[in-house]
């Protein structure tokens, strides 16, 4: 039992960290909550599905298409919507929520309301001491670690990454140092769209494709930001593990139906006890 919780917890947490990373980036750089983030995840899943299972493209090409769709949509959200409302975080929140519902309707119009099952990215099941884990979810966890590791290296060691960090710490200071914050914002939104789409492919293979699938990842992302505090990659990685493990423990030991409830209660608890998150304000 303990081993099962450990393995499932790690695997689930890896997926959650991957889901949340794009959302956290936007929040730490622009200080806005992008409630349309779940749409990137949904879009990633659907585009991958359409390319692979309907158009018959190879896995790699489908992945690239999904990422491109995420990047495009992320940029469009920023340029058409968020940039106009950037000084008003509540307006951003409301308008991105409306956008998410609009996109949900668009998905139903294009793909229909019936849920779709996706093929796993890779097949096979790994058995260990009587516990079985699909290769697909293991790959998701691996990709999650690679993405997070790559992102950490990117923001530490490249010029662009350091500029992103500078804007997230102090916008005015960054402008004085010759950084163009609107360009940095565009880069962040594009990256957020890409991460969302990657996470979406794995999330959709983990559950299934339907037009409501954007809500759960959004809530997970929000939970990660709230539990982990603003904009620290390590903080959100730890937060994703707290959420993943709390969920695994609740579902295995108490009741499987309480899957979402434990996460919600965690959000509310943390907000009431430590509104700035468990790790406070750290740099990206």
């Amino acid at each position, binding site marked *: 039992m303990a081993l099962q919780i450990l393995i499932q917890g790690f695997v689930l947490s890896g997926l959650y960290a991957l889901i949340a990373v794009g959302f956290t980036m936007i929040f730490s750089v622009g200080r806005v909550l992008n409630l349309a983030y779940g749409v990137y995840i949904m879009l990633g899943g659907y585009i991958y599905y359409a390319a692979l299972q309907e158009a018959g493209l190879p896995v790699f090409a489908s992945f690239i298409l999904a990422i491109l769709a995420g990047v495009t949509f992320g940029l469009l959200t920023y340029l058409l919507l968020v940039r106009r409302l950037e000084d008003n975080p*509540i307006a951003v929140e*409301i308008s991105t929520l*409306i956008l998410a519902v609009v996109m949900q309707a668009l998905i139903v119009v294009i793909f229909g309301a019936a849920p779709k099952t996706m093929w796993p990215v890779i097949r096979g099941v790994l058995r260990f001491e009587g516990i079985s884990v699909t290769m697909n979810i293991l790959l998701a966890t691996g990709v999650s670690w690679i993405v997070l590791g790559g992102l950490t290296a990117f923001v530490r060691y490249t010029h662009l990454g350091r500029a992103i960090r500078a804007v997230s710490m102090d916008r005015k200071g960054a402008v004085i140092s010759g950084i163009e914050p609107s360009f940095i914002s565009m880069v962040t939104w594009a990256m957020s769209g890409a991460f969302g789409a990657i996470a979406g492919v794995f999330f959709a293979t983990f559950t299934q494709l339907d037009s409501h699938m954007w809500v759960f990842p959004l809530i997970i992302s929000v939970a990660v930001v709230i539990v982990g505090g603003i904009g620290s990659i390590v903080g959100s990685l730890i937060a994703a593990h707290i959420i993943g493990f709390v969920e695994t423990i609740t579902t295995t030991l108490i009741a499987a139906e309480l899957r*979402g409830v434990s996460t919600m209660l965690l959000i509310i608890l943390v907000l009431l006890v430590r509104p700035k998150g468990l790790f406070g304000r750290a740099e990206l």
Partner: protein
Amino acid sequence: MSIDRETKRYLVWWLAFGVLMCLLPLGVGPGTLRILIFAHFLAMFAMSWDFLSGRTGYISFGHPFLIGIGGYTTAILSFRFGVPLYFSIPAAVVATMVGGTLFFLPALRIRGTYFALVTLAFMEILYQLTKVVAPKVTGGTRGISGLESIVTGAVNNYYLSFGIMFAIGVVLWLLIRTRLGVALSAIRMNEEAVRSTGHSTTKLKLFAFMVSAAVSGVGGAFYVHYIGSIAPRGMFEINFLFTILVAALLGGAETIIGPIMGAYFLTVLLEYLRPVMPGMERYLLYGGIALVLYVVRPAGIYSLIADAGRKMQEWRR
């Protein structure tokens, strides 16, 4: 409260609106009335949302939570325990206000974007819980259907729903014209400044939450008895929240007539689009309209009309 000229003028408008809507069943068929009944309920929810979020700036993404508490309380009491409606509906309102107190607790510590998310979490929790906790009582995923109705027939239900909506509208409108209403608006602009004038912002906020919850409770309770059923899906859903939000914002937040106009506009638009666009395309269209309007004109339709009225007056001079 002394009645000044402006108040009198607005009261005349309210009266005209009431008389017009009361005469409407003479001219239109039951189909149109049924559409308008939905508009009335949506208007109640939108006014409730607006009284809390439009006024104080504490954006609620969890209004279906409040409405659902009201709906479920009266549904369970009347259907499972045979409690008469004249008792179960007031009980639902009280239960919603208790739920509103729960809602209020996070507002003591957090505000802005975080508050909205906590309320969203409240809604999601209730959605999950109604499905798994005591399904024998709540009906689980399928909910409860076959609820007792208060009056029958389109005309009666029209008058009932309009009466409630109109009463709520007038009471809220009178409330916001008092000093209390001004203080609530001031919270949105600068909470610290309100506190520094010696007012207790906690009490003011609690008041706004209680009024909003009571309106949601009344609306939710009457709504489930009108449609005769309640289920977690459809009630605690982001689409429902979206409809309420869009109605309030489209019409114009921070006014009373705005949410009412938004509700009428949205319901009628949705209904007339039904033959042309049977499915989700309608959400696509009106979501798109709402989005564009929100970005271009955040103050909503009411402000467009008010501006036009002002220009007309200037032009006449």
